[in-house]
């Protein structure tokens, strides 16, 4: 198809950057949605292409972080200063890695040729970790049979630490890899993911850390020809958790589905800056993140950058983020950005919305005899279920459902009817 297709009838004109959508209207939600972008038609001129951001392996080349930088401005940098430019231990940590045929897990030296194949740090914390790790953990998937590996990582410890992980899916391989993170942590990690031609890989990173844990991670992914990559960020526990996936659909036919689900409680900061780069033609990308917030100071940040490069003709891309605010005193930032450097795309669009419980949904359920607390549980679970169901790995889905259930058990009954009340959660 020649020009971009309209995705919704009520779309509005393109801007260089999606406006941040925060808060919501009383008893409703504030939605933001665009579609049908066309570079030539709209004379689109990006301020700075997302791809052109400064990168370096050397932390010293990044200026000191002030908290005003585009990629730090919504992060509580004061709570992770030691991770951004302090000393980090680079020693290997203990792992729970069950033996799995077709999946090799081993530690390699920093000089290993696989280090640095996909990623280059875009921020000082990532560069700090890059310069600090002693050994990299390499997970290699080979063969063609479907494999599953849940890698238990609960022994990072509370002292500041750097980690480096490489996941390589050989051509035609097929696997689900879960990084199951829990326990204490003050960790900065870089994860490089290589998805070979025609491989199918799902990587799930679960952040179920202790309450005072801090975790700053960047995942760099490169998706090969006709390969399918699913990347899932699940953030539940931790004080500051920031996971930034930067995925490149590098070869024709590459398919990237980037999912996220998060539940932020009182005082928690859960952040994800997603970058999806359509570098090659005929690539398909879907970004879908959903989160719930409850309790004083519960905070979430989602920044979704999608770049459709000059060579990425016949690309199909859509990104969205939705947040459900359960109580007062929360703030959700949701910022979609879409840059398109070619006029020849199949479709591209984005949507973002942050809102309260839908009172009509609650009324409907309650009018069938279901108590208010049970109705709230159903609505929140239903809201997050869309993502959970897409993970495609049953044992994890069950676990997540019960984790969400546990989070909700704490929230139920706190928020009364929101009707007619000003939504003051999620405001700047």
């Amino acid at each position, binding site marked *: 198809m020649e020009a971009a297709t309209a995705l919704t009838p009520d779309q509005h004109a393109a801007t260089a950057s999606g406006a941040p959508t925060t808060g919501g209207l009383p008893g409703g939600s504030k939605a933001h949605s665009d579609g049908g972008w066309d570079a030539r038609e709209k004379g689109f001129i990006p301020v700075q292409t997302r791809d052109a951001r400064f990168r370096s392996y050397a932390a010293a080349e990044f200026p000191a972080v002030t908290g005003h930088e585009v990629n730090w401005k919504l992060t509580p940098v004061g709570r992770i200063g030691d991770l951004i430019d302090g000393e980090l231990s680079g020693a290997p940590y203990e792992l729970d890695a069950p033996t799995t045929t077709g999946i090799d897990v081993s530690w390699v030296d920093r000089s290993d040729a696989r280090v640095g194949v996909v990623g280059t740090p875009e921020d000082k914390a990532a560069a700090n970790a890059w310069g600090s790790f002693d050994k990299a953990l390499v997970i290699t998937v080979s063969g063609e049979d479907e494999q599953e590996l849940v890698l238990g990582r609960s022994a990072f410890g509370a002292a500041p630490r750097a980690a480096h992980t490489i996941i390589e899916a050989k051509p035609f391989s097929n696997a689900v890899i879960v990084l199951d993170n829990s326990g204490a942590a003050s960790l900065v990690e870089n994860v490089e993911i290589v998805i070979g031609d025609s491989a199918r890989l799902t990587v799930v990173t679960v952040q179920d850390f202790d309450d005072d844990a801090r975790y700053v991670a960047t995942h760099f992914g490169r998706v090969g020809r006709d390969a399918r990559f699913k990347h899932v960020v699940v953030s539940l526990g931790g004080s500051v958790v920031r996971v930034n996936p930067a995925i490149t659909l590098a070869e024709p036919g590459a398919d990237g589905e980037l999912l996220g689900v998060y539940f932020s409680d009182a005082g928690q900061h859960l952040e994800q800056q997603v970058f999806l780069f359509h570098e090659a033609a005929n690539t398909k990308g879907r970004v879908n993140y959903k989160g719930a917030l409850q309790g004083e100071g519960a905070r979430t940040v989602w920044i979704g950058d999608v770049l459709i490069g000059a060579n990425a003709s016949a690309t199909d891309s859509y990104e969205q983020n939705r947040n459900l605010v359960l109580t007062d005193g929360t703030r959700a930032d949701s910022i979609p950005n879409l840059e398109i450097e070619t006029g020849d795309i199949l479709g591209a669009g984005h949507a973002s919305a942050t809102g309260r419980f839908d009172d009509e949904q609650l*009324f409907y*359920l309650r009018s069938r005899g279901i*108590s*208010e607390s049970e109705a709230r549980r159903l609505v929140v*679970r239903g809201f997050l279920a869309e993502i959970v169901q897409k993970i495609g790995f049953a044992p994890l889905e069950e676990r997540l459902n019960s984790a969400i259930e546990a989070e909700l058990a704490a929230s139920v009954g706190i928020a009364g009817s929101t009707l*007619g009340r000003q939504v003051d959660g999620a405001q700047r």
Partner: protein
Amino acid sequence: MSTLTIADLQVSVATDQGQKQILRGVDLTIKEGEIHAIMGPNGSGKSTLAYAIAGHPKYTVDGGSITLDGEDVLAMSVDERARAGLFLAMQYPVEIPGVTNTNFLRTAKTAIDGEAPSIRTWVKDVRESMGKLRMDSTFAERNVNEGFSGGEKKRNEILQLELLKPKFAVLDETDSGLDVDALKIVSEGVNRAHQATGLGILLITHYTRILRYISPDFVHVFVAGRVAEEGGAELAERLEEEGYDRFLTGETAAV
């Protein structure tokens, strides 16, 4: 013998321009097994009456009473009203993303009965009711009302009516947007529930069409937030021929 009594009910709604009075003193008594049709032009307050009975938070009761067998319905929460035996089939049923119809129905049944239904009979009941309403079995696993057509949503309302077995049901324009076949199927469902449980029905409608399939014992003409005229089934026939003009001009003249 169960009775739902509405006396001098006055209801207002919060609008951007402030509180607006809609119901101006409604009196209605519905006994077990009776079918009352409420007919009136658009905007006359029919849905407001339905929502006020169900307890929708948008509507404020400024005066009057609703009692169910002497119990004060207005003092009950929305879910308490449902558990007391009231049911509202909505004009625009709500979509609930991520919640399957099966899960929803079982949760509602458990809440209404105070205990989980026995799995075997429940599964059979659901399947049978769905079959009679010509609902494909896939509707069980789909999310509540999500992506349903208008007619499918109305069938889903009647499915709930049949399974939850309330004492009184308010059906708010259940006929609107239905083609003849769907109208028959839905009406048969209502009649089944009526015969099976002695359900009392408040059938709200704009048109007389549904009254060909569900015969009312009483007809109330609703105009400008109150009952303007009452009678038997013959009143509906008169409305069919004359429309609401007679009432509307009278109303204008009175103002």
